């Protein structure tokens, strides 16, 4: 089974995010980028499928993403069999719609049995990758998945709903999965192995023709949320604050 894991570089949320001067976008120049946490989960789940039933795992990134090579080599250090950097003409590679079109072009050239990617990314404005990719490819897709296993005639996935209900689905391949959480936390990639992967090289660059992306929303402006309110901060020692809280609860008849 050939599993392709598209990964996306998103701004590191630990940092302060600045807007561009005209306020229609995020100032990406001095930002730190990291692999989207859901894509890290997706890679982990793909590797778990590989560990359990043997599969070829290919990590794929877009050349326009900052520091994407580092992320791809990290995927190899974690156990991916190979990595591909996709180049091509995309209208606006910050929009998921364009990314889906480009990746659809890649998958037309190098088809996969299964695509597992993060169910969403923190900067998804115009939609999520998995369903858009599946729509271009004409393949079935399932999002908010918390487990993927190879099965007779395809895969079995577990789809999660609010409140903890889980549906187990049998899905025929080829298919696209939007992963919410892997069955275990993403494994650690020791720096030595990442460096070894970098030295060994072996990243393939593939130029593709994108599929036709659908219409995208236009950004009128970006802004910071107004803080409508802020908590009234309780001060003093732990005992003082505990007393204040106890009073608040007593007033409401909860104690």
């Amino acid at each position, binding site marked *: 089974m050939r599993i392709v894991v598209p990964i996306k570089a998103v701004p590191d949320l630990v940092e302060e995010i600045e807007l561009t001067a005209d306020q229609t976008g995020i100032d990406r120049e001095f930002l730190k980028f990291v692999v989207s946490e859901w894509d890290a989960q997706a890679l982990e789940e793909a590797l778990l499928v590989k560990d359990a039933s043997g599969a070829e795992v290919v990590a794929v990134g877009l050349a326009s993403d900052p520091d994407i090579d580092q992320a791809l080599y990290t995927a190899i250090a974690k156990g991916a069999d190979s990595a591909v950097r996709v180049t091509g003409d995309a209208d606006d590679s910050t929009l998921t719609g364009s990314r889906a079109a480009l990746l659809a072009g890649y998958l037309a050239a190098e088809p996969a049995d299964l695509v597992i990617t993060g169910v969403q990314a923190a900067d998804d404005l115009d939609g999520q990758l998995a369903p858009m990719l599946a729509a271009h490819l004409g393949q079935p897709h399932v999002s908010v998945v918390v487990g993927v296993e190879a099965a007779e005639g395809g895969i079995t996935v577990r789809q999660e709903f609010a409140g*903890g209900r889980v549906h*187990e689905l049998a899905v025929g391949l080829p298919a696209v999965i939007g992963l919410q959480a892997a069955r275990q936390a993403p494994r650690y990639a020791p720096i030595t192995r990442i460096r070894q992967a970098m030295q060994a090289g072996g990243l393939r660059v593939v130029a593709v023709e994108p599929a036709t992306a659908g219409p995208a929303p236009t950004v009128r402006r970006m802004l910071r949320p107004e803080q409508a309110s802020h*908590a*009234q*901060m309780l001060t003093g020692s732990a005992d003082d*604050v*505990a007393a204040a809280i106890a009073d*608040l609860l007593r007033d409401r008849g909860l104690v």
Partner: protein
Amino acid sequence: MSGTVLVIAEHDGKQISDGTYELLGAARSLASALGGAAEVALFGPRDLAGQLGGASVVVSVDHPALAQYLPEAYEEALLAVLAERSPRLVLMSTATPGLDLGAAAAVRWQAPLAACVTKLEVADGVVVATAQILGGKVLAELQLAGERAIAAVIGGTFPAAAGHGTGTPDVVEIAPPAGLDQLRMSLVQVTEPPGGDVDITAADLLVSVGRGIESQDNVELVQELGDALGFPLSASRPVVDAGWLPKTRQVGKSGLKVKPKAYLAFGISGAPEHLEGMRDADLIIACNTDPGAPIFDVAHYGTTIDLFDLVPALTEKLSQ
């Protein structure tokens, strides 16, 4: 150009969800601004239309494949409805079905989609949606120009009350599309969350723990507080993912929505997915050593005292 606003209904086979009513309420006012009507797409049991009094039209597709939610089946049904009704704007939630359907429809129906919407309005005949991105740090005002658009709306954005109604909507039956007989996936099993545990949605007070609790051992410390108060513990997603508390205690977008009289949050930073599950509580008291934690934006009272000092002090005060 049509002025119809179509809401995709979510249900569990017996009951239309609260989220659907929230969207229906919004759909009614948006539709009137667009010069059209509010319609609801209902897949599966047709009799549920009786619960959608607030809609002008209920567009129904019924077929055995739609008895339970199945991504591919709902998608085929949705595309059939979109082809028939040609709405101006389609509304769905950001819960699981919304995540399956919205982006796929954007490509197959060729419409711009605004994801994670927290505000929706019509300005000069143009639909403007405000999307919340980057963990809530940035808002993007998006213009959805053209004849058709889709918006995926975060739960709790609109009031559910506005979506209820006592009217009798027209029920339009759409023939099940052929795709429903050629599905490439099937539902094997449904697992409800384990019962027998506390129902946190029914509790008047919740003592909630987040990543700041650091380890499973420390949950015991907070359990003592819960015991002293006589109310159950709940948790944010990271705590449940780590296995320190069962899934039935998870508050948030992929857990449960709670509206207790008091919500005590210990070591919870306040990521948007968590806030979605508890921001409507009557009294929110947050304890987090980071004064910049987003939880303080929704909490009524807050403190930066370390929870490992506060929890024992509070347990002691309440045991007196």
